[in-house]
């Protein structure tokens, strides 16, 4: 199977600016919904872990039984983003190598009964597990859970291959920057080569003010370049940082534009037809003044 990308979406719809919500609904109706979803990006630091935590929480808020799994072995972080770092006894590698039962490696979330974290091992490396082992483990989880969301490490090496192994669906996270988009393109090619067709894109850390000034790529530019469907748009948001400081996924902060964006993304994953909303900078004068003085909390009206 070749890695080269020859216009993923172009072949099917011929128009990259058409929003894909309807296509995905048809897909969900025709085949059973995917259960195991990998969140990946290529480039590091674009928001995979943040996205995994919030999608997991968002799907649990919708009443599903959810596991979020950190496969970033050696550099675990999903635990701290969810505020569960003090509860870790066993980890993913312990479960795979049989040092504990699978349910002993699952930590219940502080906010939601039906959300569990399987943390990565911190003192091992990516080569200590393989895709088959992770796939076995996910197949077992699929019997008891509605969704398994896998947080993939940065890069395209062993850790990436492990993380995509069990997935039936892929979400690619990028930011509106040249290097992140370039890496996303590479990853989309690799996903398609691995038979994970039609990955969907989340564009994170959008600054609507910069987009409006013509100093940031917008959604349509990115869709045109990458030829994939967009799953959601997430603004750069100070409230996300303060929530993460406290170990709470930002989706629990009702005032946070990024949290609202993640709630919409969770709904789309769950098959709801939620239209994409373009992010608008706040235009009122007081907010502009605050923004220029660096004292506003967010630059946006909605997500």
């Amino acid at each position, binding site marked *: 199977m070749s890695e080269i990308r020859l216009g993923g979406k*172009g072949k099917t719809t011929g128009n990259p600016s058409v929003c894909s919500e309807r296509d995905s609904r048809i897909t969900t109706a025709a085949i059973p919904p995917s259960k195991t979803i990998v969140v990946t990006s290529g480039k590091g630091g674009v928001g995979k872990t943040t996205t995994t935590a919030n999608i997991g929480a968002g799907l649990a808020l919708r009443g599903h039984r959810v596991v979020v799994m950190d496969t970033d072995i050696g550099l675990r972080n999903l635990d701290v983003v969810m505020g569960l770092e003090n509860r870790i006894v066993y980890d993913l590698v312990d479960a795979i190598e049989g040092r504990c039962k699978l349910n002993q490696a699952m930590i219940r979330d502080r906010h939601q009964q039906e959300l569990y974290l399987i943390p990565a091992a911190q003192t091992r490396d990516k080569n200590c597990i393989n895709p088959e082992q992770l796939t076995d483990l996910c197949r077992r989880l699929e019997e008891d859970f509605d969704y398994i969301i896998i947080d993939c490490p940065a890069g395209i090496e062993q850790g990436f291959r492990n993380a995509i192994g069990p997935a039936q669906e892929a979400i690619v996270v990028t930011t509106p920057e040249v290097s992140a988009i370039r890496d996303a393109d590479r990853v989309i090619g690799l996903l398609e080569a691995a038979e994970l067709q039609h990955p969907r894109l989340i564009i994170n850390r959008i600054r609507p003010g910069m987009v409006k000034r013509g*100093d940031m790529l917008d959604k349509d530019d990115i869709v045109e370049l990458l030829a994939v469907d967009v799953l959601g748009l997430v603004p750069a948001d100070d409230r996300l940082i303060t929530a993460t400081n406290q170990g709470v996924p930002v989706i629990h902060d009702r005032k946070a534009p990024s949290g609202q964006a993640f709630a919409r993304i969770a709904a789309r994953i769950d098959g709801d037809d939620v239209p994409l909303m373009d992010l608008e900078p706040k235009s009122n004068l007081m907010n502009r003044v605050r923004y220029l003085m660096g004292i506003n909390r967010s630059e946006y009206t909605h997500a």
Partner: protein
Amino acid sequence: MLSKLLRAKTPNVIRSARGGPDNTRSIAKNRLNAALSRDRYDLLGPVRSGRRDSLERDLYAAISSHLEVDSEFHELEIRRLNDSFYLVASVRIQAMLPWAPAG
């Protein structure tokens, strides 16, 4: 067709020098366009199967039975226009061979 492709390729930096849109967004977009085509084309090639070399060889063989051309292509790349990809090849003609009508 070709003129359309060439127009699509004109970087905005140049256009903005002529008074066109002058913002970093379009510069980013043009740079990405170039980088992605290059990446995608590179993936066609040597890493997996030497397909890039063999494409070059086959094209050269086909063309050189009609025309005397340089052995190296001036350009051979995959470009993108909207949703489609195009193979764009150009090679310098050294000398026209005497034209023989078919059959």
